[in-house]
């Protein structure tokens, strides 16, 4: 059957999807204590309190003094994992996922998993609303919320917000769009653990774009629902070149390179397994190219038409200008005549006044 097939591969009865709703939160950090303080507060401020946080220090400076400040409030819901060698963001996430979902699956009994980057934050209603959504909408493997994009800069130990705008998350998450590019930042996403277990780890070969790769694999399992409230804050630091930079901002070149490599890899993978698809891909590319040519032709035709009409309009305007000049000339003549008449009237008036005076 072509439809529906979302979540088919998970092979789970709906009743197993609604339970106690414990959330596993993965947070990776490296030398960003100023932002980590905010991220920890963001998790603690959640109205929904049934979660456990796995904080992975990716071989950065110790976060223990900072974490100690928050320890009481975590009430044993924090596991700190300290890595001694940094292997990148994806590897750090995997360390937490392994610990949370695979080694301790029976012990912790999670139903949802999410990644909360150390520089991002949530609205206090994020987990409450997202868990409620997934509990109601059992056809989705995951859910995303809308978000705000917050631009900021870090100076010494202070974080200054520069601006805040509406972030772009589509109203519907389409697999075809996801194949084109990532559709939302990781801070917006909450995944069912069943789906996360099925698709496995983050791809550690990718120094950037790991979340895109993960989301494509996620969508191969099923659909992602959208919660239309802005419940997440995606923080960007445009100017930072140090550890406080975003991978998106500070690693722009890497993103371009790996977008190309990842795209090639996707296609290569398909063609290696099914060489015959080369023909299909070629045909699709050809059709797309032909389609583009048609659009270009139509565009050129319209462009020519608009130019022609433009010329006509200009001609009309020129004629109107001439008419206007004639009218202005006539008006001037009229004004002169009126002025002459007025002079005559004045003179007559003056004469009459004198006459009146004389009569007196």
């Amino acid at each position: 059957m072509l439809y529906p097939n979302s979540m088919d591969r998970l092979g789970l009865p709906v009743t197993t999807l609604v339970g106690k709703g414990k959330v596993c939160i993965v947070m990776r950090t490296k030398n960003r204590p100023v932002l980590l303080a905010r991220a920890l507060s963001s998790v603690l401020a959640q109205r929904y309190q049934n979660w456990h946080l796995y904080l992975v220090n990716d071989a950065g400076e110790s976060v223990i003094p900072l974490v100690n400040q928050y320890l009481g409030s975590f009430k044993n819901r924090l596991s700190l994992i300290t890595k001694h060698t940094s292997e990148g963001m994806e590897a750090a996430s995997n360390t937490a996922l392994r610990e949370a979902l695979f080694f301790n699956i029976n012990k912790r009994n999670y139903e949802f998993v999410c990644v909360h980057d150390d520089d991002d934050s949530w609205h206090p209603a994020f987990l409450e609303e997202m868990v409620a959504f997934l509990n109601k909408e059992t056809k989705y493997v995951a859910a995303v919320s809308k978000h705000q994009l917050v631009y900021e800069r870090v100076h010494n130990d202070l974080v200054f917000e520069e601006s805040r705008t509406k972030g772009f998350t589509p109203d519907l998450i389409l697999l075809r769009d996801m194949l084109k590019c990532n559709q939302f930042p990781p801070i917006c996403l909450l995944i069912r653990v069943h789906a996360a277990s099925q698709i496995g780890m983050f791809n550690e070969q990718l120094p950037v774009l790991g979340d895109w790769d993960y989301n494509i694999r996620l969508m191969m399992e099923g659909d992602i629902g959208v919660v239309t409230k802005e419940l997440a804050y995606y923080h960007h630091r445009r100017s930072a070149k140090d550890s406080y930079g975003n991978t998106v901002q500070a690693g722009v070149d890497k993103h371009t390179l790996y977008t190309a490599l990842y795209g090639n890899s996707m296609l290569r993978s398909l063609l290696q397994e099914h060489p015959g698809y080369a023909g299909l891909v070629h045909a699709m590319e050809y059709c797309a190219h032909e389609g583009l040519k048609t659009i270009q032709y139509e565009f050129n035709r319209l462009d020519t038409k608009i130019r022609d009409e433009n010329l006509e309009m200009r001609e009309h305007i020129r004629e109107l200008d001439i008419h206007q000049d004639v009218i202005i000339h006539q008006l001037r003549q009229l004004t002169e005549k009126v002025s002459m008449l007025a002079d005559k009237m004045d003179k007559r008036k003056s004469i009459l006044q004198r006459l009146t005076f004389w009569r007196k």
Partner: protein
Amino acid sequence: MNKVSVTPLWPVDTRFVEDLKKAAQDVECVSLDIFDTAITRTVDSPVDVFAKVEKHLLLIYGKCATGFASFREQAEQQARSKKAALGLQDITLRMIYDELAFLMPDFEFIDGAMQQELEVETLVLVPVPEILAFVEHLSEIGKPYIFVSDMYLPAPFLERVLSSMGYEGWRSIYVSGDVNASKAKGNIWSIVKKKHPIDSMLHVGDDNWADGFCPTLLGIKTRLFKRAQSNRRLGANLTPDVLPFSYLSRMQKIARERYSTVKLNPWYELGSGLGALLVTAFINWLDEKVRTNKIKRLYFLARDGYLLYQAWKTANINPDVEVKYLYVSRRTLMPASGYLESSENLLSPHLIQFICGTDDNTTLQHILDRISLKNEMIEKELVSEYGSLDVVIRAHSKGRGPFESVMRRHADILYKNFKPQYEATLGYLTEQGLMDDVQTAIVDTGWNGTMQRAINTLLKPANREVCGFYYGLWQQTAVNRYSSGYMESALANPFEMVSDNPEVALAVGLLEELHGSPRQSTIGYKRIQDRWEPHTPEVKAEREQYDEKIEFFQRGTLEGVFSLFREGKYMTLDIQDCTIPAAKAALASVFLSPTEEELTLLGSLGHALMFDHSTFKSMLAPIPDMDEEAKVLIEGNDWRPGLLKYWHSQASDREQRQRIRNLALTHLGPYMNERQLRQFWI
């Protein structure tokens, strides 16, 4: 339905009853309004019944009933807007619930909810003693009486309720929803006329228009009775969280009528209602945080922490925790911490920001005076930049630039200038035990976390740190989040939008004034007998306000807190009712949708906008002629809904009311929802 035996709401107003008896003498029949006349509800506002229904439905049917109260209200509005198209004069309960089914498509228990509403109505309704006494008299003299009501509830239900309340022997009951005519339109009387002589009739009711004006036009004798009238809080929250305040507020009104010979101070009453609920909820929350974080010592910060300090002691909830009241202010902490972060060559951005803080009245001379800076060279440079030291430096104005440059240029002078303040402040904090090796927290109303940051900056060299617990923290807290240390807030969270908490964000001035202390702001410390004593010079206007108003509010609050923690109960409140959501709902009721009395009371407060308390502005001001002037007044006001509500109540004509509506939309629209804003459209 069994007859309920209830204690009368209040002693009968015999003068009013005698007047009714007299008026009834020369008529053949008496007509009585039902709601807020013959019977009344024990909730603050009639719609609060829906919140109680939601509470019941949540218990019976679970989460699917969430939002019922709000949908129920919308359903009634939709049914009313459709009635004209259907050629109806009024609506019925059935029509409302048919609309509700569209609004709550996933809620399968519409009929069950309707039944619950009827049951809840019976639970909250009580008879009104004056009307009951009057009806007894009518029965004695054999004068017929009828009930005429504009209501969607069915007549058979109302009959059952009325007889359970002690009414008996009425001849007819006319309910607008059933007879398809209303008092508000006046056409119900033509139906009444068929059986009863309206040309020889006395009608008693509470509504000026429907019970007064309309029947009078038809020659019916009328008497208005307002004693049992409930509030119409159009902008309050409509969720089960509003119920604790709703019962409490109504009970206060009833108690006011019951003991009308004892004149209670209105500030005391506000404290024993809103204050007790709010502060108890916070103390409960604070206790939980203190235990979770293993806090052993609490410092309540002057001045806004004063009431909370008294309340914590009164509650005596956690005797293991040592409590202190710390005389600090931005004026003492900022220069001290700024000094520590600066050097002779460079002043810290925090210190610069503190020095240059202004409102619309701050002159250069005032800024220099408040930091006790007397330096000819600096004064000369400022005069050459601005022309005079009497120039006003406004907040956010570009004119601040040269001033900041002069301050930076003379970093060495300022650095030396702040040294004594640093030493005194540090000395005071040390004497108060902040350097002790004890798990410590500070408590304050909050907002930006700057005081905590300053304290922790001063404690850092000694490797000490405090955490902080607050009423509210704004998004700006993010700036200092790391350097401030651990902080949590009860009412407003920094990860929320301001529009999530308008009841706090739009009433900061009120909260600060109501929580303040009799001693004024700390401006420094003096060395007296080898100890640092806080210097808190008296500001006459602020002291008078405390003595005449705030003290009574705080007394009322503390009495409530005492009873709640000692007995577990206070008036209608249970200690379990005192939750943070209930406190926020109470704040929304009073601060966003005040009654006329509350508006007059709270509007009489003054508030200091700047940390130096140089100006003490009244919360309310007359309506200005120009919108530009209005904008300045609104933006500089710490209780915007109050100011606009006041203007709305003072508007003399339709045009002016429309102007106030536009101002409300512009200045409150970003924070308050449409439901809250509708109070400006009546």
